[in-house]
């Protein structure tokens, strides 16, 4: 069996499962955020029961600090729900950050676990060897009540990325390269499994970027077999026990894709689909905003890369560009302060703000006007994703975001720093 099949079988109390089979599985954790929470709480009240406290995680991130009265009411409903039932895992403003980063930092995500969340990028925890996937609000409410959910066992696709990655090439480029190859529905209903030297040599942060964007290929989950890097990270962090799951030698894959990491370059996904992938060095596009943040690329490793580009170039952000830096969590923010990265960003005229989803989903704090273009370390460049329907989002890695912020046009960092 593949990793996804094994995790589903274990959680359904079965010896084995096969693709397309429908199983009822026990869930380890269920997460909702401030946007998906309110509808979930309304549904939950219909059940006339209490939530399973240790399994429920509530995270305020999309519209906090509140952008208006409606979002304030929404956040309040989460606070009240947490209080009413005494849910211990409620991460409010100032104590948390972007939901997926918190699920990982706080030790909910771990190898072999089955985790669902009312947010599509819940697939991020595949980077730690978990099967995690997005669901809707009503389902999240049902899981809080019952601790179970039905799944159709997905077919699995194997992605092998061998070879050495070049300078300024990151996990973001690997996953964009793959999505560029297979398309935004290339993994519809499927589980992606990632293998190969280039994947093994990535730190956790870059692995999270890859699993995070599995949904942009339509996948149910994107799993990387856990190794020492993951076990080390989890020490003194993970809640409870966990047991790593690996695919069997004779696991059956729907298909296998192979890539040579040395051929992957810093890329951008041009509007309006993540599959529109082009080398950053090959396009000539002026930008108005550069956004560094989100569950995709808002971690300390991402901030370090971007700060190094700003420092290396020795220049400030281009006068026609607003650069916005949003660390994905409070602890990323603190670490960035300790390392002096916040100072580097501010010295370069970037605007730095506390953790929120905000601009990533076109919510607030960085919304684009008509005709504006943004190079962004986020995961979606859909029509109107970051603002006006006639604005444009170019997805890229943090090094490209920083290099582009300096030049005012989409730029491969190699051309800026070594050209």
């Amino acid at each position, binding site marked *: 069996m593949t990793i996804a099949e094994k995790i589903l079988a274990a959680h359904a109390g079965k010896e084995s499962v096969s693709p397309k089979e429908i199983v009822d599985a026990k869930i380890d954790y269920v997460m909702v955020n401030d946007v*998906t929470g309110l*509808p979930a709480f309304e549904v939950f009240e219909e059940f006339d029961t209490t939530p399973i406290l240790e399994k429920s995680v509530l995270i305020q991130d999309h519209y906090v600090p509140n952008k208006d009265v409606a979002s304030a009411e*929404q956040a309040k409903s989460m606070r009240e729900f947490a209080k009413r039932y005494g849910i211990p895992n409620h991460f409010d403003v100032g104590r948390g950050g972007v939901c997926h980063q918190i699920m990982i930092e706080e030790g909910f995500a771990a190898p072999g676990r089955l985790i669902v969340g009312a947010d599509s990028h819940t697939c991020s925890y595949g980077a730690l060897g978990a099967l995690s996937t997005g669901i809707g609000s009503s*389902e999240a409410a049902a899981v809080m009540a019952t601790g179970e959910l039905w799944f159709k066992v997905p077919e699995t696709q194997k992605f092998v990325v061998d070879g050495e990655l070049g300078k300024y090439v990151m996990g973001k480029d690997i996953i964009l390269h793959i999505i560029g190859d297979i398309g*935004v529905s290339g993994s519809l209903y499927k589980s992606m499994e990632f293998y190969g030297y280039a994947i093994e040599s990535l730190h956790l942060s870059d692995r999270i970027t890859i699993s995070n964007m599995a949904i942009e290929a339509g996948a149910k989950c994107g799993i990387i077999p856990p190794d020492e890097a993951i076990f080390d990270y989890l020490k003194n962090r993970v809640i409870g026990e966990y047991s790593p799951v690996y695919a069997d030698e004779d696991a059956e894959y729907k298909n296998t894709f192979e890539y040579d990491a040395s051929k992957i370059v810093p890329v951008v996904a041009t509007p309006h689909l993540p599959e529109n992938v082009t080398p950053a060095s090959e396009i000539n596009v002026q930008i108005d905003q550069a956004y560094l943040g989100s569950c995709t690329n808002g971690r300390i490793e991402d901030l370090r890369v971007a700060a190094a580009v700003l420092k290396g170039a020795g220049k400030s952000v281009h006068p026609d560009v607003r650069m916005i830096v949003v660390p994905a969590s409070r602890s990323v923010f603190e670490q960035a302060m300790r390392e002096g990265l916040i100072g580097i960003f501010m010295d370069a005229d970037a605007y730095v703000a506390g953790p929120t989803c905000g601009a990533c989903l076109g919510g607030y704090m960085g919304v684009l006007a008509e005709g504006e273009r943004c190079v962004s370390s986020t995961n979606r460049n859909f029509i109107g994703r970051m603002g006006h329907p006639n604005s444009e989002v170019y997805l890229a890695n943090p090094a490209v975001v920083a290099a582009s912020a300096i030049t005012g046009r989409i730029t491969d960092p190699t051309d800026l720093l070594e050209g």
Partner: protein
Amino acid sequence: MEKYIKGRVWRFSENVDTDQIIPAIYLVTGDRQELAKHAFENVRPDFAKDVSDGDIIVAGPNFGSGSSREHAPRALLGAGIKCVIAPSFARIFYRNSINIGLPLVECDVDAADGDILAIDFGDGKIVNTNTSAGYTFPSLPDFLVDLLDVGLIENTKRKLKGK
């Protein structure tokens, strides 16, 4: 769920994501009617104004991709949409729709805006009454038909009672 419906078509292309169905700035309520006022606002401003109860959406592959927001199928139900037909759906959208009682049909149908389709869920047949073209689709597994009929809320209540 009604076994037979007839409705007017709204035609969409492929990869319609949930940001298009309901933009993020309106995600401050779960109310179907409120959400319906802004359905497809960025890409088809006429939709919310002209849609009427009983209409049908026909789209290309990968309908409902992107964000997990249940607000998307809620907005469509609020707008009176009775069924969405597409060759394939994004999985979270699929689950959300079935859970809240919006039937989806996996089928590649040729239809233009304003065509009238007749859908027979029992027999798995669709007829485009404007072109007379007929289509068949595989029926849903019993498990999902039950879920669609009973709804997730009722289903969960039963589960909790059985415990």
